[in-house]
């Protein structure tokens, strides 16, 4: 890695450490440093403070960190796939596709009286995001203009959201609250049980991304270039889309759709580290996503405590301006167009 990449890397690690600490201490109950050290050392879950730290704050923190990383990584892969810096799972409608399928699963589980397991949720979410991704790919074959592609993605998102709303309308009262909260994007439902699934899935996605990095670095230069050096384009594209769908699916399954992290984080990372090195980008985007979601979740739950905002609200506040600036910058420079 180059010097700049190292600087960004170290900064992100430090930021994550700081955010982890702040996250642990923030919340409705004040915890002193001594108490905290005590709780962490003793692994004591007998008193309420121990429960708060170990059962609520800790899993939520880990979940938001890993899901944030997954989201940013998914965005980076999609940006590479579409050769388009404003691609991301949320704007392309992939998150909404996942959301729709999870909603269907939720309603079905209630109607048909079966218990929804976490794996089922992940699977439904994965199927939903894959379908939405395929749809976007089909559209991208027809339109080469990236703005139109994004508009199409947004439209897909709206259609899926509308369908989800429809499902909510038919669901029973008890479900609605749950479904509604979830569909806004939130880490509130975090638990150790979820973390046990999230960490391996996200790590699988991360490893796969690294394995795809050789191809990605060639693919960044366009299809004909990649074909010229002997890459199997079709296979590569399939893997890339599966991995990015998996990553955004896991996020949606556990936290609902979260906007802008997928677009903004890789972009900010790229801009500050000034690199195109795929492996560095994968690593830094992941860390950046972690830091961002830790921060956003912190703000979401503490800003108007005890009321909690949806994470998407916060990520939008930070992410949207980044995207606007990016669009303004891009307007004057060349777009990649494959012949």
């Amino acid at each position, binding site marked *: 890695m180059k010097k700049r990449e190292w600087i960004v890397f170290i900064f992100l690690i430090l930021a994550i450490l700081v955010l982890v600490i702040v996250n642990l201490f923030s919340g409705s109950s004040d915890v002193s440093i001594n108490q905290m050290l005590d709780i962490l050392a003793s692994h004591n879950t007998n008193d309420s403070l121990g429960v708060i730290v170990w059962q609520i704050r800790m899993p939520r923190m880990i979940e938001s960190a890993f899901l944030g990383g997954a989201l940013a990584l998914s965005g980076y892969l999609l940006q590479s796939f579409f050769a388009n810096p404003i691609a991301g799972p949320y704007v392309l409608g992939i998150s909404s596709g996942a959301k729709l399928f999870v909603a269907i699963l939720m309603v079905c589980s209630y109607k048909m009286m079966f218990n929804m397991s976490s794996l089922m949720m992940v699977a439904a979410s994965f199927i939903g995001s894959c379908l939405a991704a395929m749809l976007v790919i089909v559209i991208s074959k027809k339109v080469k203009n990236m703005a139109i592609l994004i508009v199409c993605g947004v439209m897909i998102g709206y259609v899926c959201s509308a369908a989800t709303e429809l499902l909510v309308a038919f669901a029973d009262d008890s479900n609605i609250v749950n479904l509604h909260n979830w569909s806004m994007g939130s880490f509130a439902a975090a638990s150790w049980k979820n973390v046990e699934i999230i960490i391996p899935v996200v790590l699988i996605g991360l490893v796969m991304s690294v394995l795809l990095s*050789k191809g990605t670095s*060639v693919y960044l230069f366009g299809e004909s270039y990649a074909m*010229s050096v002997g890459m199997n384009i079709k296979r590569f594209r399939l893997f890339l889309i599966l991995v990015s769908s998996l990553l955004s699916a896991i996020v949606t399954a556990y936290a609902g759709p979260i906007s802008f992290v997928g677009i903004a984080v890789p972009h900010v990372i*790229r801009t500050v580290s000034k690199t*195109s*090195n795929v492996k560095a980008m994968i690593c830094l985007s992941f860390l950046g996503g972690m830091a961002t979601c830790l921060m956003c979740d912190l703000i979401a739950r503490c800003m108007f405590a005890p009321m909690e905002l949806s994470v998407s609200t916060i990520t939008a506040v930070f992410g949207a301006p980044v995207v606007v600036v990016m669009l303004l910058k891009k307007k004057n420079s060349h777009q990649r167009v494959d012949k």
Partner: protein
Amino acid sequence: MSEIITRELSVGYDKKIIIGKIGLEVKAGKIVVLIGPNGAGKSTILKTIAGFLKPVGGAVYFDGKSSEDIGLQDRAKLVASMMTSGFGAEYMTVSDVVAGGRYPYTGLLGKLSSEDEKEIKKALSIVGASEHKDREFNKLSDGQKQRVLLARAIAQKSKFMILDEPTSFLDIGYKLSFIEILKDLATKENIGIIMSLHELEMAAKVADTVVCIADDGKIDKIGNPKDVFKNQYIEQLFNVKPGLLKETYCFEKIENPIAQVKAKLENKKAHFLMVQGTMSSAGKSLVVAGLCRIFMQDGYRVAPFKSQNMALNSFITEEGLEMGRAQVMQAEAAGVKPSVYMNPILLKPTSDSGSQIIVNGKVRGNMRARDYFEYKTELVPDILAAVDRLQQQADIIVIEGAGSPAEINLKSNDIVNMGMAAMVDAPVLLVGDIDRGGVFAQLLGTIELLDKEERQRVKGLIVNKFRGDKTILDPGLEMLEKRGGIPIAGVVPYMRLALEDEDSLSEKFDRNDKAPISIGVIKLPHIANFTDFDAFEQIPDIGIHYITGTGDVDAMDMIIIPGSKNTISDMVWLKESGIESEVIKYSSSGRPVMGICGGYQMLGKKIRDPLGVENGGEINGLGLLPVETVLTNRKYRSQVIGTVVNPTGILSKLSGKRYEGYEIHMGETKPIEGNLPEYTSNGSGYCSGNVWGTYVHGIFDSADIVTGIVEILAKEKNIDVNLSNVTDYKALKEKEYDRLADTMREYMDMELIYQIMGMEDGKAKSV
């Protein structure tokens, strides 16, 4: 030895062939360049060879192995390609880009080994971009980007390289240095290169082999640069207006403008005689016609020739090609079929100061007079080729000059007068026009203005259009011979002949526009046997209108659909152009429609082509006659003499008239209604009401039939027409040619003429 070979390769998208039957060969160390107009399919070929597209047919072989049997990474080690101009992700450095070329060699995670680093370094130094290696690729200039992309291809260490327009968008400096790098790669690294180039001067500089791809989906030519880069060929390949290319590119050295055309006819076989005049309208055309007839009468095969005609009204041959009328008349005098080779260049003045250039009957383009003057030398090969074609079938070729050979401002690179005579080494007869006065000055002045060499070509003088007492002229002739040192070959009296020539014909056309009776001939795209309608032209009150679009049909007094060389496609044209519905409407109001040969087939209900003689399939005809045509492989070709029997409709009065003509067609037409009246013999023609169809060409050449039709049309219109001197057109012309020949024999020294042609025994062969 390494090579890429394509066999029967067809390339295209989605199974649609853009270019088929490609047979290319790229050898190690050689550079093959594809040139051709935009959209011709150069990139498609390159993409297919590079493996980006699957061949639609055939295969690409690398060192004898079909590309389909080679894995992607192995192929990448064999061939590197550079298809698009540079773009890259943000912040990608030059070495990142070049490192991409090592893809087939690196491991799972793409970590570069020290050898990879070495190759990258070497590639960068070959293209001279070492100092930029850490710069961001996107911030380089286009020229530097192309070099870096080339370095990437070099780093791939492949045996072959495929480049698609690598020098487009580069300034001339980068273009040249890029081309030099490629040349070095070929010679020093022994890499085989195939690429497309738009810059022809670059292609000419770098190519070992040039592949020319025309925009009709064909490989037009594969050759070395010397053969391909000729202005004329390149203009043709890129559809450039003739002469325009020279302003920008010039592949051939322009010859010294005052120099003469140096090309000569090789293996001269025929005897040549050239007739030049002291001025326009000195009577050259008729002298040539008379000479043609005389030689024909003497038992020789004769062909007239004039390298270049300037005329508004051209003649259209049986093949549908355009040529000057004068040579048609001379060909008739010579008793041979007119051919475009008798007049390879035809200039048709257009509205502005330029002309349309027609070469061998086909339009080359429009040119201003000054441009043509520059361009014409490039037509010399066409002229010589035409002469050569003629001499295969002629013992004597009589060449007509144009204007005067002494236009000293226009003499450089002459191709019509003395230049032409030099090309075929022909003796020249100089014709002066006594009718317009000053004949001695004309002849002597002209000779005086010729070069010594040219003067030696003039072997005889002719005083033309003489009237009155020859004895008064004789002393002048003696002095003329003495002063000019050239014998008098004849004094030809003024004659009035009923023969067409360029000028009178144009008058006739003008008059025809206002003629009281109009006959519309549909000008089919593949019209054949145009001459069928010549007979009408001798009648002042008849106007022949060639119909090319809608709106004209209704105003005609009769519609004739002529023969076609491709009936089915012309039928399609008839439908598409909307003329079909106009003709059907026209006919349904009872007005007369006639079809000759292909036109006859079109009148029927259906034309079927089960054997694919033309395009295959079947097509509905106009449906005006209840007949059906089946095209067959057999060609019917026969001379026919017959009598018209009971035609229906207004032509019923033609019954009993004799006709003489010929049939030539592929296909049989049969009535599908039992009692359809047959009016020309042997099933060659059927009619129904005012619709007649026949296979007989030349049916109008019979005076009886032509006057009959005209009389009927006139009567229908209630007008009088003057038919007093309509004779059998052919017979009349034959008679006139004979009269011309007889007169010229009488007044000219034919012995001298044979002698100057180098045929001392000429007379002996005469009958």
